[in-house]
């Protein structure tokens, strides 16, 4: 009897977890393997891939498997620089999103219950209009004839500083990145902060903590899981984003995403594009792994006042 029921339980477990597993297998594991193989092959003469076996009427070209793409990646410092720059932009976007989202999430979490859902709705409302349209809107807002540009340059002019161009600059890219990804930071933070027991803040105040200490000693450490998941949700997409640098960035503002896109759609070097993707995936995995480890360390810090 017991055996039967555990068996049924087992089947049910597979039934429930089967479809998502299958989804991951088909749409993540398989493509990753294809990508890995692609990165180990030679590019075809007119884009695509060269055949693995040399054709009968020997055309000039290279066939078979190779590590050449990876050698190429490491041989030129330019690619490492673009990676580093992309990580820098992702880190900056994440930090700015965090600084902007935290007070907002705190405000929503501490406002009256009946207003909370409305405020969350307002946060996600931008998703209702098309992503590209919203980015193009920033082109207008940051453009040389915009009110914002005129205002900034008037102010700068008053101090005797030469006028600046906002659009097609690293600044514009950062603005776009932060704007698009802000809700992804607000939502996990809000979900976390909303669950905090208000009695903990009362207790902290009662035991002598002023407003800053209450935040730093209670709210902030308890919100770390939200901070980490929000950061992952911003950092990773920003790293692979190519549309925003394409539209808002200048010619020099190439990030990994643009580089990869160019390999497939521009230079038609599939193997190198695949190799770049693999490198990016590895870098993201390394960083998230590190972040998860750090999160665990930070949230379950062992006592400083050990009793023994």
């Amino acid at each position, binding site marked *: 009897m017991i055996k039967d029921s555990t068996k049924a339980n087992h089947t049910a477990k597979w039934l429930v977890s089967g479809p998502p597993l299958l989804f991951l297998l088909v749409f993540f594991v398989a493509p990753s393997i294809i990508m890995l193989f692609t990165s180990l092959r030679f590019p075809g003469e007119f884009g695509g891939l060269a055949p693995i076996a040399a054709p009968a009427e020997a055309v000039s070209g290279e066939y078979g498997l190779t590590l050449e793409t990876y050698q190429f990646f490491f041989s030129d410092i330019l690619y490492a620089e673009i990676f580093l720059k992309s990580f820098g932009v992702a880190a900056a976007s994440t930090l700015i999103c965090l600084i902007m989202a935290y007070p907002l999430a705190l405000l929503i979490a501490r406002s009256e219950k009946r207003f909370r859902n409305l405020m969350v709705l307002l946060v996600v409302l931008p998703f209702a209009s098309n992503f590209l349209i919203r980015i193009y809107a920033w082109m207008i807002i940051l453009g040389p004839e915009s009110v914002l540009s005129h205002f900034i340059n008037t102010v700068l002019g008053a101090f005797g500083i030469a006028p600046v161009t906002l659009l097609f600059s690293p600044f514009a890219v950062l603005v776009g990145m932060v704007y698009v990804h802000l809700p992804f930071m607000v939502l996990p933070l809000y979900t976390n902060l909303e669950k905090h027991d208000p009695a*903990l803040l009362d207790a902290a105040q009662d035991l002598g903590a002023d407003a800053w200490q209450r935040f730093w000693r209670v709210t902030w450490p308890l919100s770390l899981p939200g901070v980490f998941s929000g950061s992952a949700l911003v950092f990773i997409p920003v790293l692979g984003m190519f549309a925003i640098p394409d539209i808002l960035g200048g010619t020099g503002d190439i990030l990994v995403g643009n580089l990869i896109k160019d390999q497939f759609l521009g230079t038609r070097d599939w193997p190198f594009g695949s190799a770049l993707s693999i490198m990016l995936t590895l870098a993201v995995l390394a960083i998230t792994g590190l972040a998860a480890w750090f999160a665990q360390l930070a949230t379950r810090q062992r006592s400083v006042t050990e009793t023994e």
Partner: protein
Amino acid sequence: MALLEIRNVTRRFGDFIAVDNVSISIEAGEFFTLLGPSGCGKTTLLRMIAGFDLPDSGQILLDGKDMVDTPSEKRPIHTVFQSYALFPHMTVADNIAFPLRMAGKTSDEIKSRVREALDDVRLSNFGNRFPEELSGGQKQRVAFARGLVNRPRLLLLDEPLGALDAKLREEMQIELINLQKDMGVTFVFITHAQNEALALSHRIAVMNQGNIEQLDEPSRIYGFPRNRFVADFIGKISMINAQVLEAAPSHLKLMVAGLGEVTAPSKEGVRVGDTGVMAIRPEQVRISHHAEETELKNHFLGKVQGFLYVGDVTTYIVELPNGASIEALLPNSAPGRAKFFEAGDPVAVSWRHDAGIFLND
């Protein structure tokens, strides 16, 4: 000078008066209890003492100093919350160290004080645990230790035993009494459990609808409730409608319709012709067989209507000839016997002339 003085404090929420012109003065070293049903204003009063809320009018003085401009974190008053409110991301030791850190104590002092506090609540080996790894009773003790470690002038306890099961609650009550005695810290305890209040307190203020109905020692609150609310709220009591026939300095003579005359202890302010109730506790009522002789003045015949067996004692509900019912309590001294009388048995109930109390309408 009283340690804490609450002077004519009123707190309103819209049209609702949560605390209505309350004055209390609490002495240093006292175990003081605010007792009342939920919504009586005891929690509001506690929050005002802690500094989470301010009175609309009146004053709260600690050591003679008005606390109105002192925020909660600056008051030498700590609170043990009903939910314990232990910081889940800190170890037990860090939880207890929190008030010491906030007070800017040196790390050496923090270390030794935390160890001392852990010893006091018998949790010496639990310093490195997290709150989620503790049982309810252990969490409770950590909350006490955290509240007491920085030696506050006053410790407020907001129904701290409410979440514990009955057996553990009794243990914690004894522990709480010892802790208070050892530390010498003044406790202000709030609860809706009357037996808890009676067991723990030096003095009790019974609150109802924002007012203090009676403020006295436990035995006087129980023995001489001032009005029907207090009588009814504290312990069990039977009430029979009565009218005053004679008000002598030594005793009262009451007329109970359909029953006869009842003698009760005298009471100030009661005049002939007053109507009210004769209230008597079940343990003061003697129940016996009809035929038994008795020297007691208040002696009436009745019929057992039902009984409630709770192990150590059985309460018998006796119907009197006038239709009123009175409860009598009998310890189950004979082993294995749940009751001495059956439902429907004719019985006699009697009580001393100085037992019972007359309560005006």
